[in-house]
């Protein structure tokens, strides 16, 4: 009994579940697109510093119209504010933080993830290549890398694969995958299904996932911070 949801609801479900990856005291990099949305759901009781790889440690809320500063943007080029206690830095320092694994968590989008933790999220052969931006650095630069994405592509085909078909962003870099249907961890054996969304069966998840799935003994229902 698969669940039909509109796109906005899917994104919100995923973003709310992703928020639970963030612990108080964490330094976090949120990728461009859906990952940026996660910031909207961060529990007020958590003290979290969001890093933007263009040189801001401490992204604040969006500015009011009268606060807009053209010299202050996030990595998605959106105008932002700085949080209290923020620090600006240059791009080399910003990526020193990333590459040196000073971030606790990165939440990024994905086109394909393989069961060995390979990630593809930057190019589709035959299409114009826009560039990888900071993604290839960020996947190596956090204590934990979580990929959030739709469970299947627009044709209904699996995006969680035995091996990536698209050119890689990083090899063996993913720790956890969160979709609107399931949460899976990359383990030494294979992908382990640890959470499942309400309304989905394990068999349905397996059927929409190319990678082999081990089912956790403590399989839970996805809890989002609603």
């Amino acid at each position: 009994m698969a669940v039909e949801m509109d796109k906005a609801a899917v994104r919100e479900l995923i973003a709310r579940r992703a928020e639970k990856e963030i612990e108080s005291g964490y330094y976090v990099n949120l990728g461009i697109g859906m990952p940026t949305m996660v910031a909207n759901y961060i529990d007020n009781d958590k003290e979290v510093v969001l890093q933007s790889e263009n040189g801001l440690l401490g992204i604040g809320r969006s500015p009011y119209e009268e606060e807009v500063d053209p010299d202050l943007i996030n990595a998605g080029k959106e105008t932002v504010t700085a949080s209290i206690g923020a620090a600006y830095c240059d791009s080399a320092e910003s990526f020193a933080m990333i590459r040196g694994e000073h971030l606790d968590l990165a939440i990024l989008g994905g086109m394909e993830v393989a069961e060995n933790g390979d990630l593809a999220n930057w190019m589709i052969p035959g299409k114009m290549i826009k560039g990888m931006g900071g993604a290839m650095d960020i996947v190596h630069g956090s204590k934990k890398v979580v990929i959030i994405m739709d469970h299947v592509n627009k044709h209904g085909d699996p995006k969680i694969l035995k091996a990536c078909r698209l050119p890689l962003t990083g090899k063996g870099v993913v720790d956890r995958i969160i979709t609107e249907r399931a949460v899976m961890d990359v383990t030494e054996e294979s992908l382990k299904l640890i959470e499942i969304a309400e309304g989905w069966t394990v068999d349905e998840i397996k059927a929409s996932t190319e990678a082999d799935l081990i089912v956790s003994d403590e399989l839970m229902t996805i809890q989002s911070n609603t």
Partner: protein
Amino acid sequence: METNMKHIHTSFQEAVKDINDHSTIMVGGFGLVGIPENLILALVESNVKHLTVISNNCGVDDWGLGLLLENKQIDKMIGSYVGENKEFERQVLAGELEVELTPQGTLAERIRAGGAGIPAFYTPAGVGTPIAEGKEVRTFDGRDYLLETGLTADVSLVRALKGDKHGNLIYNKTARNFNPMMAAAGAVTIAEVEELVEPGELDADQIHTPGIYVQGLIEGQQEKRIERRTVRTHA
């Protein structure tokens, strides 16, 4: 004693005169933030051709480095993300423009290395991906890394909030981005500053780019276009 250690340019046209056909230049900025707007405009006017441009992005269709593209002044672009620009795509597909895509952190570090006299370094970014092709892979402590080389430029164009006549620069917020490393990596570095001040007016503890890296300065006013104005409304 003279206190202008540096050349204070009186026109943007004159400020870019060291850039010739086939020059390699670095241009500061991330998106349209922190770009040396007026130096870019002067470079368009100069009409120099066959440039190799090192910059994180390539502007948009009608602003920033996009203007150089439109005027067909760029032969090769080294950057990390070039997706904001239709003319860019057209020139690449037509084979008129060569592109070297580099992970953003690797780009920042390659430029820093170039300015710091480090010819090459190892980084994890890109291992096992298409950008590793042709590059040395080496294992340190059981983990694989790519060898990446330093980058330098004939001329670097940067933008700062304040600069003094000894070339010391201070940047504003996220307009700092690639500017400090590029300032150090240019054989000649020209800084477009919002405000030019006398030596001693900047706090010596708070200088982002020490004057040794800067050869010329010019004061200018920027439009500071915004690519993605994102605001919240009052409740």
